[in-house]
């Protein structure tokens, strides 16, 4: 009894400290659906509130309380909320590993029956977009917000000035790197304090060398898949080849992406390229509209004798995914809210905000989005970010070991073995 009391007290304190939404929600006369997301830009919030307004209009007596939280703070808050068994009704994730943890704990509503009963709604989405949110054949989240894939952004003006063109092969890439280095410009800007930034290089290299199966088999422990496979060792070697070729600016392992560490290098012509998710384009558009005009992008180059199709992508088709928690008292209504949040009106709103939902039929006159969409449409595989795909514990280890590869403090063989040992223990 006393422990129950304590739990209640701390849950109350937690809630009050976190958002003050959960405990007070119950006092309102209307039935309240709580919604947490990590969209903090004015444009994104407007779309979500708009969907909530339409939901409220269609469902008198219900009220949506939407809360928008910054990325890193959100990741911590949502975990505490689930741990205290006071999660919001509707929450965001990237699918993959962390969502799987919540599903395993029985905290997430299976959306499959809802989707099966409304095929017209379900069939609007690109089938591949459910990949990251499908666990044991059941769909637990809807792709919302955006399609984000990792591409190499580059400064068109600098490329023209030094007479280089976007590389499509590894050797061309090395030549481009040499040209910029000779001219005192860092070829790549990289802010790798955050680690997921550098992870993209490793993820792409593994894909280009061994194809998407290499990673998929190693994660699923099937067809002899293993992280000690030569594919992973070679990816590490290629990565360190880039480091040794001086492909990254000074201090890459300490710069913070969240405070614009890498973008500042681009803006000041101190770096020519950056491998980053496509959200970068709208970030740059907001931060530095002048520079945005010089911005171009190309796909990660191929690797000699690599098995992976250079059209394969690393990224996420739903940035973010939205789900309903099992603790929600109004599950059916919350699922209905999910639909409002991902319907055609919401999709159009996001398109106007330069974000593209993973739907089958998208028309836009924005050339950047058109290009992103066409890359996605022709990609044989879209691999979810490794740090989100892997179970959280391995995701952290992957981030640590890839940072060590960049720092040249571990050899590719060491990293492959260390990761395989941990994967064996965790994934069986």
């Amino acid at each position, binding site marked *: 009894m006393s422990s129950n009391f304590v739990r209640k007290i701390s849950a109350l304190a937690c809630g009050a400290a976190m958002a003050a939404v959960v405990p007070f929600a119950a006092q309102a006369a209307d039935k309240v659906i709580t919604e947490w997301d990590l969209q903090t830009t004015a444009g994104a919030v407007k779309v979500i509130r708009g969907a909530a307004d339409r939901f409220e209009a269609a469902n008198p007596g219900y009220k949506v309380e939407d809360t928008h939280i910054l990325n890193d703070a959100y990741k911590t808050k949502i975990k505490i909320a*689930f741990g205290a068994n006071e999660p919001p009704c509707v929450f965001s994730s990237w699918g993959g590993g962390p969502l799987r943890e919540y599903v395993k704990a029985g905290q997430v509503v299976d959306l499959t029956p809802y989707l099966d009963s409304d095929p017209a709604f379900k069939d609007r989405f690109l089938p591949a977009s459910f990949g990251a949110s499908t666990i044991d054949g059941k769909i637990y989240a809807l792709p919302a917000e955006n399609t984000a894939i990792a591409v190499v952004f580059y400064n068109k003006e600098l490329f023209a000035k030094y007479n280089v063109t976007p590389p499509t092969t590894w050797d061309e890439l090395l030549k481009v790197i040499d040209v910029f280095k000779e001219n005192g410009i860092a070829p790549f800007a990289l802010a790798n304090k955050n680690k997921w930034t550098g992870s993209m290089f490793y993820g792409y290299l593994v894909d280009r060398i061994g194809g998407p199966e290499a990673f998929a088999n190693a994660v699923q422990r099937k067809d002899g898949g293993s992280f000690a496979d030569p594919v992973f060792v070679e990816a590490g070697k290629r990565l360190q080849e880039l480091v040794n070729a001086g492909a990254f600016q000074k201090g890459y392992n300490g710069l913070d992406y969240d405070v614009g560490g890498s973008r500042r290098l681009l803006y000041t012509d101190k770096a020519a390229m950056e491998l980053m998710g496509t959200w970068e384009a709208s970030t740059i558009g907001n931060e530095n509209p002048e520079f945005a005009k010089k911005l171009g992008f190309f796909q990660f180059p191929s690797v000699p004798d690599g098995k992976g199709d250079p059209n394969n992508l690393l990224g996420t088709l739903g940035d973010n995914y939205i789900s309903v928690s099992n603790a929600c008292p109004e599950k059916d209504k919350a699922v209905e809210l999910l639909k409002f949040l991902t319907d055609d009106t919401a999709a159009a709103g996001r398109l106007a905000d330069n974000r593209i939902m993973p739907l089958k039929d998208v028309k836009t006159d924005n050339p950047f989005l058109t290009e992103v969409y066409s890359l996605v449409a022709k990609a044989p595989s879209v691999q979810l970010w490794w740090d989100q795909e892997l179970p959280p514990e391995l995701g*952290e280890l992957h981030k640590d070991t890839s940072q060590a590869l960049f*720092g040249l403090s571990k050899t590719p063989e060491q990293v492959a073995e260390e990761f395989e040992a941990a994967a064996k223990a965790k994934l069986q």
Partner: protein
Amino acid sequence: MTDISTRSAGGGAAGAALSLKKLAPAVFLAPAVLLLAVYLIYPLIDSFRLSLLDWNGLGANARFVGLDNWKKLATDALFWEAAWNNILLAVFSVLIQMPIALILAVVLDNAGKGSRILKILYFLPLLMSSVALGVLFKYFYDVNFGPLNALLDYVGLGSLAQDWLGDTRFALGAVIAVVCWQFIPFYMVLFMAGLASFPAEISEAAKLDGASETTIFWKMKLPHLKGTLRTAIVLSVIGALRYFDLIYVMTGGGPEGASELMATYMYRNVFSSFQLGYGSTVASAMFIIVILIASVLLRFSKRYETEV
């Protein structure tokens, strides 16, 4: 109770006053004790319980694994590296903060009224939020645009410019410097209070006897500060062993764990890796280490104990 049963006519008022006297402390203590029980003692004990589980912290899927987490901890190189970093932080905190704080306190103490603005200025770092400070110094140390490297370049020491936060050799040192910068004012104030309690007539008498300011400081004021120094060192060491915020903001424990502390390692385990059980093991181990070091420190410095 006994008061009530044994009271006699005329003694009633006194008896009630006595029982009130006994009750009052309990009533006044109750809120503090309750808060401590809920927010300190219960979590402390519970984190030991959690350290015996394999649990992601979500739902009822915890598995009892006995001492497995503790065995893992014993051989976890990352944890011991973090613990070693904590010890480095503690040692350098004391070695850097105490002398500088003492010098500032003595200078300000002697400077008289004219030093009021300086006192306020020196005290400012302590008033700033750690997170704001961390972000500020992240810009300060920035390898490409930071003022520190620019300054080194300007005075012709460009060869000393470093990747302060991104190089495994410098990251911890760079953060320790900021930690010291932030906390020196605190110890400065502590020492100033100690010096203020030094009776002026004694130093006047000493001066009449021909003692110089230096002699007065070393032979009289410093011994007078013994107790304050002891308190300051213990506070500084304990603070360093549980340190979290600036490291979390400035380096996140990186690069490659070079500036990882026990507290940031625990945070990463619980909130990034979803290993609540193992994270609790780290937290409990941290508790044990802090208690051990603090009690050893207190015991060995007991002879310097004073009323301060």
